């Protein structure tokens, strides 16, 4: 069975919690005790009906405020696929949560209220989905029941969204008219909208093609951990453990190790079950080489004819996620990229992006919480990277404040150079 990870976003009250509750409920993932708990809470809160949205409202503080404030993960399965939902709050100050939840998503699901059409938040969510290069974007036009299931209302939202999305880099865009509250077009095609010829939401989630979204071209293996058993049975064993993040590795492949530049041949690709004929992303394996060269954590194994960029200077889109501090030129931070950790300094902030208008403000001097900008970084050591658009694993990094140890930024690499 395949696994699909998707992130959900919508502004407050667009019906995101109801939609997720509906998906879980209609696919029979809700257990009796959970249902009873939310029935009790609904009653206490004076709701007239069992509020499915409560299913996904996790922490106490959130229940008190009635809003979702952190990324929550939900799981459900159908006979066709398993799903992991990163449920990200749509609240304006929580861009960082959407970025967090969406970083590993195959698909983003954005909710729009059919009555309100595209609002500032919808633009923000679409933009973030494209920035994070989530391969598939689904726009659910919700509350269709409140616009009499009117096709024209749906088409109007669709046209408005498309116009904005043209400025973004979105590979696959789908629109579905739904009513989360009543279940229209969620699991089954709705008889209330016979004019709609597409799939129900669940059907779309089950069928959308994701197998080719990974990079199986550029062989990339960041060495994570060196395995050297101190035992008689495996006296001379020296294996490089890690997760393949691109391409395919096979015994006999000629490979190059960065930063040393030494070349060798893959002797075997080991797993607990034994050696395998080939391995690809995202397998976690152990590679052994024919030659006894010096390889350690943070090194990158690739093919001599297809190497990543290697350098200390990079250009990236950076999303600042700290309330307590800002990014300004000369800010020094720790950078975590693949299995490497180095120190980095922002040498230039080229512009800050207004994520509603996509306007580039070149006069900006800092990035504050939830702001996104194009930044030049200089690192203390070379990193081995690809453009984020080509490889999400070798093209991404996080920045850590060395005094507070907080993760303060996420970065998506655009290219090399200062």
């Amino acid at each position: 069975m395949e696994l699909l990870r998707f992130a959900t976003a919508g502004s407050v009250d667009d019906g995101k919690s109801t939609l997720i509750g509906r998906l879980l409920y209609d696919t029979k993932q809700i257990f009796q005790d959970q249902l009873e708990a939310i029935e009790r809470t609904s009653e206490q809160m004076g709701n007239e009906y069992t509020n499915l949205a409560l299913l996904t409202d996790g922490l106490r503080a959130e229940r008190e405020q009635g809003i979702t404030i952190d990324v929550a993960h939900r799981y459900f399965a159908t006979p066709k696929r398993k799903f992991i939902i990163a449920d990200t709050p749509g609240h304006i100050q929580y861009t960082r949560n959407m970025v967090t939840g969406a970083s590993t998503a195959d698909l983003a699901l954005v909710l729009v209220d059919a009555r309100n059409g595209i609002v500032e938040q919808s633009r923000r969510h679409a933009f973030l989905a494209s920035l994070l290069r989530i391969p598939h974007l689904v726009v659910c036009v919700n509350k269709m029941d409140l616009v009499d299931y009117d096709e024209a209302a749906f088409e109007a939202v669709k046209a408005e969204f498309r116009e904005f999305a043209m400025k973004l880099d979105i590979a696959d865009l789908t629109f579905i008219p739904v009513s989360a509250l009543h279940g229209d077009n969620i699991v089954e095609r709705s008889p209330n909208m016979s004019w709609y010829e597409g799939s129900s939401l669940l059907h779309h989630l089950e069928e959308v093609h994701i197998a080719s979204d990974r990079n199986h071209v550029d062989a990339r293996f960041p060495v994570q951990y060196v395995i050297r058993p101190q035992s008689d049975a495996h006296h001379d064993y020296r294996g490089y453990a890690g997760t393949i993040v691109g391409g395919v590795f096979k015994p006999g492949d000629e490979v190059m190790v960065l930063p040393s530049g030494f070349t060798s041949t893959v002797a075997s690709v080991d797993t607990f079950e034994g050696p395998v004929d080939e391995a690809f992303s995202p397998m976690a394996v152990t590679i052994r080489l024919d030659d006894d060269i010096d390889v350690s954590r943070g090194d990158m194994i690739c093919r001599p004819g297809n190497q990543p960029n290697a350098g200390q200077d990079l250009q990236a889109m950076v999303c600042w996620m700290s309330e307590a501090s800002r990014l300004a030129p000369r800010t020094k931070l720790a950078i975590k990229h693949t299995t490497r950790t180095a120190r980095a300094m922002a040498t230039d902030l080229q512009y800050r992006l207004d994520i509603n208008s996509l306007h580039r403000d070149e006069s900006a001097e800092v990035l504050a919480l939830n702001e996104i900008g194009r930044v030049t970084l200089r690192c203390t050591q070379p990193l081995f990277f690809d453009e984020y658009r080509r490889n999400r694993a070798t093209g991404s990094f996080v920045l850590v404040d060395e005094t507070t140890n907080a993760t303060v930024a996420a970065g998506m690499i655009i290219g090399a150079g200062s």
Partner: protein
Amino acid sequence: MTTTYELTDLDQLEAESIHIFREVAAEFERPCLLFSGGKDSIVMLRLAEKAFSPARLPFPVMHVDTGHNFPEVLDFRDRRLAELGARLVVASVQQSIDEGRVTEETGPRASRNRLQTTTLLDAIGEHRFDALFGGARRDEEKARAKERVYSFRDEFGQWDPKNQRPELWNLYNGCIRQGEHIRVFPISNWTELDIWEYIRREGIEIPSIYFAHQRPVFERDGMWLADSEYVTRMEGEEVVNRTVRYRTVGDMSCTGAVDSNAATIEQVIEEVGATRITERGATRADDRVSEAAMEDRKREGYF
């Protein structure tokens, strides 16, 4: 010939977990794996074994022993760890009681469950562990649904749900100061059914109490508690013999059994697929107290 490079759902989950184990082993000085004897921690052991094979686990295994164990589980623990050649650290709640660090609860609802937190935090301090692998899953409970894979704990072992570090891609921030630690949850994204399917696929042995067996039990709060020396029965609580099995394994005084005839792993999977009650709701008295029970305990430094 066209090859498709696809992994099954279980293979993807396994790869993600192995990645996390290796990351921690590479970046922390003194990690440790928390082992309860339950199915989740048994799967954790298997994943750790896979992550470092053919070498042994590069960290010890810790059991927080309430003294109220199922004997089947202790047997299992010792056998399995001997097989792996892993080092066992036992943190004893009884010892915490004897040393006056905690006070034993009394009465029929007494449980050592809460006391475990102190024993655990003391052991972390004593051994200077900086990362503790736990087998919690996000599908178990609402507070866990929002917890990170690397869950930061301050010097009091507390979790602050409002101040979690953003966690992106497969980049984990393990930076801590002295006295702080990280709880690491490599199987965060697994569901109960995934665990069972993996146990079946891998042919992993689990303690016999997970399968249907005859046991003297009594009913309390709508679940079957084992009649044992660790629980005082209340008036009207009659012991009966029933065919039951456990869905989770914890302290004998508060882990309930469910009626079941599932004697094989296939039957268990069938039952889990059809069941309508969450595993914690069904069988853990400790979580039923309030809807926010788990969140409160986690804040204090519970598993």
